[in-house]
């Protein structure tokens, strides 16, 4: 049986590559020691029958959370095992939210499918800033355990976000000025259920100005025992000047907010973690000709639907995903 590191990280590092990064300029003897040490650390790829292999695989660094896919190839096929592991450092927003004690167990309301639909349609349309102003639309509902949801997102390249703090604000500001990438850049606070987001995820591009980002709030509802989450997703496409921000600049969002919503659906399909999908009313139709404004003055328009996605613990191929026809999308 063979371990296939390329399936864990296509850009993994060989042991001698890592050793070379630690070489001394002057001492060949030391360099030989480094080479020997890292070769000894590396896990052997071939696993003999009945034996256990132990060692390191050197992959690209992730902070906050990592999905580790292990694929083993043998004469009768492939064994693949996935692990979602959180890497707490004290800097991520998910570490600062106590999801377990957010609602007492007896206060959670387990819903039937029809009740779920009615409840979701009656939720407030949008996030706010506590002054009752309408912010970005709450356009996604996720159903599933936090580990399963976070795992599905991380598997598709989403990263958790740093909590707002002096160090992370400084790094955001540097990235903002220099147009650098900041995978874990904090997101601003928006409110739903009278509290700021419980956790946020983002999928960053080459610069901090461009990213898909999603805020999530745990709701007081469950469906078949699975927690129901309300989420707001939008795509940052650049920066613009504004008087509504302390820094006089803000991210500009893609006005067609449904695009980011449906991008998430595609990501969940790709991660084979989507059990069923539905669309439900609740946001309210907004036409491109008469767009709404969010809290920072960005305009947006929408078909008014929320995507409802149920996350599976086991893998579901795309052709086995159930589409529940609550509402039809405009082009259907």
């Amino acid at each position, binding site marked *: 049986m063979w371990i296939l590191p390329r399936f864990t990280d296509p850009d993994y590092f060989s042991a001698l590559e890592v050793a070379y990064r630690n070489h001394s300029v*002057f*001492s060949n003897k*030391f360099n030989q020691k480094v080479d020997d040490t890292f070769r000894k650390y590396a896990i052997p790829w071939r696993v003999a029958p009945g034996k256990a292999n132990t060692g390191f695989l050197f992959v690209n660094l992730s902070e906050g959370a990592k999905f580790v896919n292990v694929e083993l190839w043998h004469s009768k096929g492939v*064994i693949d*095992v996935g692990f979602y*592991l959180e890497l707490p450092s004290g800097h991520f927003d998910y570490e600062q939210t106590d999801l377990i004690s957010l609602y007492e167990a007896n206060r959670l309301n387990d819903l039937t499918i029809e009740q779920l639909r009615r409840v979701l349609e009656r939720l407030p349309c949008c996030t706010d800033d506590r002054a009752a102003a309408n912010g970005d639309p709450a356009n996604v509902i996720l159903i599933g355990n936090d580990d399963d949801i976070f795992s599905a997102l991380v598997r598709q390249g989403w990263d958790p976000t740093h909590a707002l703090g002096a160090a992370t604000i400084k790094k955001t500001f540097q990235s903002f000025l220099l147009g650098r990438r900041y995978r874990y850049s904090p997101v601003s606070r928006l409110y739903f259920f009278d509290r700021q987001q419980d956790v946020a995820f983002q999928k960053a591009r080459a610069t901090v100005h461009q990213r898909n980002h999603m805020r999530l709030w745990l709701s007081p509802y469950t469906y078949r025992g699975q927690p129901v989450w309300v989420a707001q997703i939008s795509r940052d496409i650049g920066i613009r000047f504004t008087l509504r921000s302390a820094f006089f600049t803000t991210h500009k969002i893609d006005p067609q907010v449904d695009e980011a919503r449906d991008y998430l659906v595609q990501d969940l399909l790709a991660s084979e973690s989507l059990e069923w999908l539905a669309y439900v009313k609740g946001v309210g139709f907004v036409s491109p000709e008469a767009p709404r404004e969010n809290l920072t003055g960005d305009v947006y328009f929408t078909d008014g639907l929320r995507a409802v996605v149920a996350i599976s613990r086991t893998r579901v191929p795309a052709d086995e995903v159930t589409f529940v026809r609550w509402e039809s999308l405009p082009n259907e």
Partner: protein
Amino acid sequence: MRAEFGSPLRPMRCAQIRERNDSPLTASLSLLRMRQRAASWVGRHAPLAICVASPARVVVFVEQLSVDRFLLKIHKRTSRFFKMRQIGTLFVLAVLAAFDFGCASLAPAKVNDPSFIRAAGTKEKDNVLVTVAVLTATESRDYFGRPLEPGVSRQYG
């Protein structure tokens, strides 16, 4: 603004350096004079570039002038300038070597129960047991005795 390669500066500078085959310092002196002219020219015509098209590179170029002036002063005071410079170079190399040897230590931790093992996950599939643990930047530095991702652990650790 476009760089003016047709200005007299570039051909003059490059030709003069080629003409002089004597000591590097003499070449350096003529280069210095050229650069002084260039500097005054830059002062008048900024942000036009000299030999390079980027104004940012010009800034670096002008900063180098002050170093040359400093070296020139030393040369006038003592003819043993080259010897001093060689000794200085050797000294710097010796310091660097000492620094490199001092830092070049690979001391993996001798720990039987590293912290990352406690957060490991284990799964079984088709009679195969797989255990996985992921090290943070700080944990890898502590375990390997070297920061495998320089900068990350210092920034947030």
